[in-house]
């Protein structure tokens, strides 16, 4: 598999062998689509009624199987559950309750003035969750926490057959530092807004894990607000769930913001994992790096594994000195899987440091497999080495060793499923 940097801005690729088992609109043609997400018309609002009910043809929704959203998008979902949120110091078995006042967890009402500091909903499901949620979890870090003591925020679904709205805000005050694991687990149907508000000079390293049970549907908007000279490294990991749709938006507030967005997803038959990124360079001298990697395999109940990656990067006229690069790579482990990948770069000023994008979707590289096997390594092990190698770049950057181990084990387990 080789990277083929897209020659023009926009465009993208759709890989759909075994089209017979797809449950998405076969009429999609990404490569010839008109300009994606016309910026001037991008609508943001807290009011759900200001968004039309999606029908499936809209640019924002055209990849999403709406009938699997269980009414989150058209107001027909009835809320009968709540999410659970726990915040602990450390990760894994050794995690303990929070102590001291440097980091605190509050539950507040929807009219809390801090709500919205991260950003504003840009689609109907996010606005629905915003308007309807009754409880907001705010986790505030006002200290430079040591790397050795990550924060673990565990979000648990409302349970199978139940539906909940969620709102979580993670705030890093000026010059605060934290490594955070935001761990999503459990069952149910959830529409969520997650705000990451990183103040001037603060440093957030967050790994957002979606390790949902097989039944879960999660549609979430991530609003990232980047203060002056603030740093965010956000790693998004999607491993489980029936349908997971994530829409992170980067809002720079002042010069010097530095954001790295990494992603790892592994979709099996029947699963729909969708990531829609918007990096909005509206401010001069900010940096962004995006690297998302996905693997797909198999079909189940007539539905192929399907992933969607939309990477919108906008460099507005004012954003001189911008430095950005985005990359998406997908590895198709079996033929009957479908990966859509659409990097999209819109540049309104020439005064930038650099801007680039690349997207590649490929099958297992038989030459790599041959090379490893020619040294005596059995096929299954050779395949595991290649897949681990593929994700290695993303996993190596995760600074919580126990989480790294968990992610590696999860990938191994995925590979066991198809006997790769």
């Amino acid at each position, binding site marked *: 598999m080789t990277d083929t940097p897209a020659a023009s801005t926009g465009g993208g690729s759709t890989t759909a062998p075994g089209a017979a088992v797809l449950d998405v609109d076969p009429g999609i043609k990404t490569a010839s689509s008109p300009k994606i997400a016309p910026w001037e018309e991008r609508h943001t609002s807290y009011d759900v009624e200001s968004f039309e009910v999606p029908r499936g043809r809209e640019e924002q929704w055209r990849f999403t199987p709406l009938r699997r959203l269980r009414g989150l998008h058209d107001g027909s979902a009835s809320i009968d559950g709540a999410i659970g949120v726990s915040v602990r110091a450390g990760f894994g078995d050794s995690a303990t309750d929070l102590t001291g006042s440097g980091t605190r967890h509050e539950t507040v009402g929807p009219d809390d003035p801090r709500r919205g500091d991260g950003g504003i909903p840009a689609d109907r499901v996010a606005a629905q969750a915003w308007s309807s949620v009754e409880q907001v979890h705010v986790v505030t870090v006002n200290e430079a926490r040591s790397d050795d003591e990550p924060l673990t925020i565990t979000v648990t679904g409302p349970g199978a057959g139940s539906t909940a709205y969620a709102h979580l805000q993670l705030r890093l005050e000026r010059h605060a530092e934290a490594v955070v694991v935001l761990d999503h687990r459990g069952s149910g149907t959830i529409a969520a807004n997650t705000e990451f508000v990183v103040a001037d000079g603060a440093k957030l390293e967050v790994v957002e894990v979606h390790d949902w049970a097989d039944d879960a549907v999660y549609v979430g908007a991530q609003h990232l607000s980047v203060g002056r000279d603030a740093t965010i490294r956000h790693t998004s990991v999607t491993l489980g769930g029936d349908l997971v749709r994530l829409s992170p938006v980067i809002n720079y507030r002042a010069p010097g913001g530095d954001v790295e967005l990494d992603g790892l997803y592994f979709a099996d038959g029947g699963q729909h994992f969708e990531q829609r990124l918007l990096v909005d360079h509206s401010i001069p001298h900010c940096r962004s790096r995006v690297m998302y990697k996905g693997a797909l395999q198999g079909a189940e109940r007539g539905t192929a594994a399907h992933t969607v990656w939309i990477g919108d990067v906008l460099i507005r006229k004012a954003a001189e000195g911008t430095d950005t690069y985005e990359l998406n790579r997908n590895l198709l482990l079996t033929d009957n899987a479908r990966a859509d990948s659409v990097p999209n770069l819109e540049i309104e000023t020439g005064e930038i440091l650099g801007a680039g994008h690349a997207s590649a979707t490929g099958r297992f590289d038989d030459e790599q497999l*041959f090379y490893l*096997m*020619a040294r*005596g390594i059995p096929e299954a092990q050779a395949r595991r080495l*290649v897949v*681990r*190698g593929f994700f290695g770049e993303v996993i190596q950057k995760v600074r919580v060793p126990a989480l790294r181990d968990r992610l590696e084990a999860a990938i191994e387990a995925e590979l066991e499923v198809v006997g790769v």
Partner: protein
Amino acid sequence: MSTLEIRDLHVEVETESGPKEILRGVDLTVSSNETHAIMGPNGSGKSTLAYSIAGHPKYTVTKGQVLLDGEDVLEMAVDERARAGLFLAMQYPVEVPGVSMSNFLRSAATATRGEAPKVRHWVKEVKGAMSDLDIDPAFAERSVNEGFSGGEKKRHEVLQMALLKPRIAVLDETDSGLDVDALRVVSKGVNDYKATSDVGILLITHYTRILRYIAPDRVHVFVNGRVAESGGPELAEELETNGYERFTDTAESTKEEQPA
């Protein structure tokens, strides 16, 4: 004592206009402690022969046999061939991003030896083999062949041979792309392994300069998908002076006499 026997080997590749025969009846036998050089013009099928022995899926054997000590190599999967004692140093080694050289070498050694080498002993062994080939220890942490220069890749092919200790090794243009010093180092690596083992070597090359370091027992001229002539080391000298003209002419005239 091992013997690799290639008998009347015919091999095709799939092309856009249907299958194309590349090997047209190769006969060749290599035994332990022998070094055979194969020389032949570009496109004559030397790499095809090497890949077919290793079992590359691109090549289809339509006729003939490859036997290692009487065992049918063509029946074996690629990894089984390697574990049976066959090794191919490739003309174009493959990059495997994200897999470290050290992890790769250890996985390969574990597979070919049938058990994981003892850690302390292994670390020493790898270090020693790397320093014999003038390879910087930092390469151990780099991804397999990724971003290696041509010469660095070739050194690592020989490193793998030294660590995996095959019974029969096919070296496909391991000398190409090496500067004079590297050629000496790599040749010494091959000779050291020859000296400490019974390896039989099939050395594919375009240049007699490597044959000054690694002395062949036999030289085969490979033309148009088969061995056109075999002889002693003096044959290499003749090729150096006169080129392949004499053999390609023969090949052409044979073709004309017996149009397929």
